[in-house]
């Protein structure tokens, strides 16, 4: 019987590996889910005299999209966001993260802005409050200002249809 042990060990291992293929190790549950979105007040890109905070979005289901002009994946995501903005399913707020070269305004003027508002997080401090690990990242926030979902990486039509849109429906956007 001893000679079958290596094969058995391997089969158990292979079973786990097969299961592992359908899990996503990057999908670390964010500790912020179910918690109120951290408050902030930041000037808006292009309108530095206006101040934006999450409280302004009370009563709406909205998306907080963390992006940056220097981020290549964000550019990839941009046309998708543009289409979403046109469909008017939920307002998107684009947190402009660590834009040291001050390019956001020019970029949005050139390529169009999918955002309802673009708060300017130059120091990156708000990003830290939200536990941002990289750009782009998108938070779904409900009518009471509670974070309901976090998506890491660019939103593509697939992610939108299977992940974010159902959540928005559930929250009654």
């Amino acid at each position, binding site marked *: 019987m001893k000679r079958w042990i*290596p*094969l058995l060990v391997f089969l158990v291992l292979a079973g*786990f*590996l097969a*299961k*592992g*293929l359908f899990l996503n*190790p*990057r999908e670390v549950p964010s500790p912020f889910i179910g918690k109120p979105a951290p408050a902030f007040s930041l000037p808006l890109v292009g309108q530095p005299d206006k101040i934006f905070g999450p409280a302004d979005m009370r009563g709406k289901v909205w998306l907080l999209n963390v992006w940056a002009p220097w981020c*290549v994946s964000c550019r990839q995501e941009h046309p998708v966001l543009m289409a979403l903005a046109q469909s008017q399913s939920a307002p998107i707020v684009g947190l402009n993260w660590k834009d040291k070269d001050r390019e956001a305004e020019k970029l949005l003027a050139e390529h169009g802005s999918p955002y309802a508002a673009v708060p300017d997080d130059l120091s990156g401090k708000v990003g830290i409050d939200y536990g941002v690990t990289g750009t782009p990242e998108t938070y779904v926030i409900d009518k009471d200002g509670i974070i309901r979902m976090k998506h890491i990486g660019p939103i593509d039509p697939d992610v939108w249809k299977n992940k974010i849109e159902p959540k928005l429906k559930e929250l009654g956007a």
Partner: protein
Amino acid sequence: MIPELGHFALITALILALTQAILPLWGAARGHTTLMAVARPAAQAQFLFVGMAFSCLAYAFLTNDFTVENVARNSFSQLPEIYRFTATWGSHEGSMLLWALILGFWTTAVSLFSRHLPDDMVARVIGIMGLISSGFLAFLLTTSNPFLRLLPAPADGRDMNPLLQDPGMVIHPPMLYMGYVGFSVAFAFAIAALMSGKLDAAWARWSRPWTTVAWAFLTAGIVLGSWWAYNELGWGGWWFWDPTENASFMPWLAGTALIHSLAVTEKRGAFKAWTVLLALIAFSLSLLGTFLVRSGVLSSVHAFATDPARGSFILGFLAVVVGGSLTLYAWRAPKMLSGGAFSWFSREAMLLANNVVLLAAMASVLLGTLYPLFMDAMGLGKISVGPPYFNAVFVPLMAPALFLIGVGSLTRWKEASLPDMWTRLKWALAISVATGLLLPLTLKGFNPWESLGYTLAMWIVLTVFIGLRERTRRGARLLSLPRAFWGMQIAHLGLAWGVAGITLVANHQLERDVRMNVGDHATLAGYTFTFQGATEFPGPNYRAARGTVEVSQNGKKLFTLYPEKRIYNASGMPMTEAAIHPNFFRDVYVALGEPLDSEAKTWAVRVFYKPFINWLWIGGLFLVVGGFLAASDRRYRIAVKPIKA
């Protein structure tokens, strides 16, 4: 045109690989010499065509052909030429093509250096390697075609991952793959032996040089990888127990065990079943490593883009190759009669103990690497296993292995006498323990782990010298000792050197994070670091902030270091390029952190003092040299007379 040619070459290579697999294996089973004779030319032609495919891809990279999707994703017009070439294997597709190329290389090497082997053995070995080639080529063609076009072509590429733009990365992947894939030779020999039922000393002698060479390459690959991490990641560490690192370390541990058990099988005819199993395990772990890195089941700092179709394919392939070979093993195991009885105190027993310890270490690394996956698969939450686990489990397992090095190579085969060993080794033992106990006292005070490290390093060095002295006393001239013996001693010395380096650097490294304005000083380990500001510095495909740090000692200026913070143009990815001043006794390492004010005058600077870190790489070099030396021993080159089974 050229990419299509590459694609075509790849398809041709797959057909040739299938031919190389099916006809010789069929011929060997039927005793049909003409079919068996197909093995060599088919293998060589297959290598030629994979080589052609690889050249086509390299050409596309070198000429910035952004109509090829793989080039557009992984290269950039401003990328220096050498990195445009290495970008060929910087992507998932390219690295799989490199895998196939190196497998072709090893197969061709077997076809050329196997004149003295029986025909059916050669046919089987090459046939099995052809099966593996077929799997990888099919994988490339169905899920990872590197020649796909991207039309309309983008104006420029997205650049190679900046982390990979380092001299260490130029040769690290080929070396690592030479090792990984090289274990396929030992694997094929083991399967061929299981198929034919002829498991004898000759089989072990044929496998030995191949295994040792593959092991030496793998060692070189791992050491280079570690050196790269030390230079490039800017954290000053040299090993992170990252899943990708573990993926290469597990086959190394199994391979090390295999080298030692092959020696016993060849010389004494013992452990036959165990040796065969180890040969299967070593290559299975190489495949598992490929799966772990390629499929994305584990998150890792340097895993590639993930795709479930790829993962499923490799897992299926893994199931066929590993499952199939272990089934064959279980089926044939009763035929493997172990010869050569030995007592509990003999070289056989010592090598068996070494094997058990190495495999236990391998299993503990495997467990730690896959534990997050197990937990997640069973719905018990997402966790990650970090260095504390690995250090706590691995270090205590390595201590007996290192101790056994000293005993094992000096113990007689079959039966040794304990009192005799005691007389031969008592002084070495006393000196080692004394060194271990006293050395820390002269440095920083007593610390048991530190003591253990020095004791073991000293112990290995002394026993190596005892081994050499005993040989010469018996009349042998030092330089006329066989290369296999020298190879072993040099590799063991390298290990001692590395252990000493690790112990010293782990216990005596110093680091400081300082905030530095222009003209500020910081001192560490007797060195004074003066920050002279950071300036804008344009690179070929990045822009950098380049700091100037002058290092002096006792008021005397020693050298100037230029650490950089780079932002790569295409990806916008920031990278820390540490500046290191190395010498035999220590490294001085400076990394530039973030600018702390808007004018970029004040910077966060991290300085390290790393004593004896270079002993690690020197020790690694000794291991590699020892491996190649042992594999080149005369004994493996003389024709072996046919042995009647």
